[in-house]
C-alpha cells in the first residue's frame, strides 16, 4: 500500500481531468478551464525539467528552446503542407527535439555547474534568434492559423470554445500520463542511479553507473516533455511566437522547479499549475515578473532544501546504527565547475 502512495498525484490529475469540467460548469466558471489547460502544458514542460534538475542534478536554462522546437516544427510542417496528418507533424516535431537534445547533450553535459547553465542558456538563445530571424518561421510575429490536432476522431486539440471542456481533459490526462512516467522513473533502478549521480558523481561512477549515459537520457526526456507541451499548446492556441523560446521563459521553468522543491515532482506540478494560472489570468497585472522573482528568492532563502533534510536524516540514522556517516551527499562545491 505504501508504494501506491506515490501515485496519488497522478490519480489526482486524472480525477481533475474528468471531474473539474462539470464542476466548474455548474459553478458558472467554465471559463477558468482555459487558463488551467494552458497551465497544464507549461507544467508538463516543468516536470521534464524537474527530472533533469531535481533528480539528475543538471541545471538547464534552455528548456524553452526545446518547447519552441516542438512548437515551431509541428506548426511549420502543418502550415507548409496541410495534407500531412497532424499526427505525423507532431510526432516529427517531438522526434526532432529529441534528436537535437541527443546531439547537443553529449558535449553540453560534460560541463558542470555554472558552465552547464551558460551552455544551455546559449542554446536557448540561439533557438530564439533562429525563431525570430527566420521569415519562413514567421519572424518576430510567429506563426498563426495553426490547424487543430485530432488525436482521435472526435477528440481534437483546439482552442474553440465548444471544445473547451474536452481540451481541458486532454491536457490533464496528458499531464497525468507524463507524471506517471516520471514517478515510475524516479522510483526505479534508473531513478536511484540518477540520485546517486546527483549526490556524488565520482562516487556514482566508481560504483559502475554509466554517468554520461544516464545524464543524456534524462536530458532527452526533459526535452521530449518540453516538446510535447510545445506541440500541444501550439495546437490549442492556434499560434506560436518567438517569445516562447526566450530566456525569460526558461527561467520560469527553472523557477517553478525550484519553488516546487527541486526534486519534488508533486511540488513542481502544483507550482507549475498555480503560478502559470495566476500569470495567465493577469492577477498581478504588470507586477507578474516581480512577484515571480519574489517567490523564487523567498523560497530559495526560507525553505530548507529537501536534500539537507535527507542528509540530516541519514546522519541521524548513521548515528543510531553506529555506522560511519556516508560521504555521499556533498553538493557540488562552490562554483568550480570546469569540465573534466
Amino acid at each position, binding site marked *: 500500500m505504501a508504494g501506491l502512495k506515490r501515485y496519488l498525484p497522478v490519480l489526482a490529475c486524472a480525477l481533475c481531468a474528468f471531474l473539474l469540467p462539470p464542476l466548474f460548469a455548474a459553478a458558472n466558471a467554465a471559463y477558468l478551464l482555459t487558463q488551467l489547460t494552458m497551465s497544464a502544458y507549461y507544467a508538463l514542460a516543468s516536470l521534464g525539467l524537474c527530472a533533469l534538475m531535481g533528480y539528475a542534478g543538471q541545471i538547464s536554462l534552455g528548456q524553452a528552446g526545446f518547447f519552441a522546437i516542438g512548437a515551431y516544427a509541428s506548426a511549420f510542417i502543418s502550415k507548409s503542407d496541410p495534407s500531412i496528418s497532424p499526427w505525423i507533424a507532431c510526432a516529427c516535431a517531438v522526434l526532432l527535439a529529441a534528436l537535437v537534445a541527443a546531439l547537443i547533450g553529449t558535449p553540453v553535459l560534460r560541463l558542470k555547474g555554472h558552465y552547464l547553465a551558460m551552455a544551455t542558456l546559449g542554446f536557448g538563445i540561439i533557438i530564439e534568434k533562429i525563431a525570430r530571424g527566420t521569415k519562413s518561421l514567421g519572424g518576430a510575429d510567429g506563426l498563426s492559423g495553426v490547424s487543430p490536432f485530432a488525436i482521435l476522431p472526435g477528440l481534437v486539440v483546439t482552442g474553440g470554445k465548444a471544445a473547451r471542456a474536452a481540451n481541458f481533459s486532454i491536457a490533464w490526462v496528458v499531464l497525468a500520463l507524463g507524471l506517471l512516467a516520471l514517478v515510475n522513473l524516479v522510483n526505479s533502478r534508473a531513478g536511484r542511479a540518477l540520485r546517486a549521480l546527483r549526490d556524488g558523481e565520482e562516487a556514482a561512477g566508481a560504483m559502475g553507473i554509466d554517468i554520461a549515459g544516464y545524464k543524456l537520457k534524462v536530458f532527452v526526456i526533459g526535452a521530449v516533455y518540453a516538446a510535447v507541451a510545445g506541440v500541444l499548446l501550439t495546437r490549442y492556441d492556434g499560434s506560436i511566437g518567438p517569445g516562447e523560446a526566450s*530566456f525569460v521563459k526558461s527561467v520560469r521553468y527553472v523557477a517553478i522547479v525550484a519553488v516546487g522543491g527541486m526534486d519534488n515532482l508533486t511540488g513542481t506540478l502544483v507550482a507549475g499549475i498555480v503560478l502559470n494560472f495566476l500569470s495567465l489570468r493577469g492577477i498581478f497585472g504588470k507586477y507578474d515578473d516581480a512577484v515571480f522573482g519574489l517567490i523564487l528568492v523567498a523560497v530559495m532563502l526560507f525553505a530548507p532544501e529537501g536534500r539537507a533534510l535527507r542528509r540530516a536524516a541519514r546522519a541521524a540514522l548513521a548515528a543510531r546504527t553506529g555506522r560511519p556517516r556516508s560521504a555521499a551527499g556533498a553538493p557540488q562545491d562552490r562554483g568550480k565547475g570546469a569540465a573534466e
Partner: protein
Amino acid sequence: MPHAFLLQYFFPGLIYGSIYAAVAIGFNIIYNATGIINFAQGEFAMLGGMIASTLAGLLPLWLAVAAAVALTAMSGVAVERVFLRRIARGGVLKMIVTTIGLSILIREAALLAWGESVRTLPFFSGNEVSSVSFLGANFSPQVFWVAGATALIVAGLTAFFKFTLTGKAMRGCSADRDGASLCGIDPDRMVAMAFGMSAGIGALAGCVVAPLTQTHYAIGATLAIKGFTVAAFGGLGNSGAAVIAGLALGMLESYSTILIPEAYKDAVAICVLLVVLFAKPTGLFGSRAASLKEF
C-alpha cells in the same frame, strides 16, 4: 573597403568591449571571493546608469556619477548581506537560481522606480553631435571617457590588490578562507567588500556608456550573459584577462558587421561562449590552478 572605414569599426568595438570587461571584472571579483557566479551582475551596470540619470538633473554631472557609483556599491553590499549570505553553502544549483531570482527582482524594482522609458545621461564632454576625427574615422568624444574609465578600473584594481593591506587581505581570503580568518581577516567583511566593489565597477561602466547607448530597466540580462562570456573567455577569476577578452569580443562583434547581418550580432557572443565552454572552459588565460582566485 577604404581603410578609414576599417578603423571606424574599432571605436564601437572599444565601447562594447569596455562595458563587457567591466561586468566581467565584477563577475571575477565576486567569484574569487565567494565562488559564486552572480547572475545579477548586469543589473548593477543598469542601476548605475539609471540612478545617475535621475541625479543628473539635481547635481553636477560628476557628482551624480560618483553618487550613483556609491549608491550602487551599497546596494551590492546589501544584496550580499540580505540574500546571499544565507545560502552561501547551499550548492551550485541553489546559488544559480537565487542570483537569477535576484536579477529579476532588481530589474522589476527598476521598472517600478523608473518606468519603462529609455533614459540617458548628458555627454561628459561635448554633446550628441560632437565628433572627433582620427585618421579618417569619426567618433564621439565620450569614447575617450569610456576608455579612460576602463583604464582607471584596471589600474585601480591592480594597485588595490597589490599594494593595499585590504586588497592583500581579500586575495588571502580568496586563496584560503580559513587560513585568512586564522590571520585575523574577517571573511564576511571581505565578501561584502567584494560585492560592493563589483557593483561599483559595474555602475561606473554603466554611467560612462549611458550617454552613448542609453539605458533602461531591461538591459541587465544581456549584459550579464555577455559579461559572463567574457569572464569565461578570459578565464574565470582572472580580471586582467577579462579586459583583453572583453575588448576582443567587442571588436569581434563590431567587425562582424562587415560580413554578417547586424541582426545576428548577438549570435557572435553566444558562439564565442559555446566555443569557450566546449573547447577550453578554463578560458584563454586560465589554467585549472590559476583559475582559482587570482586577480
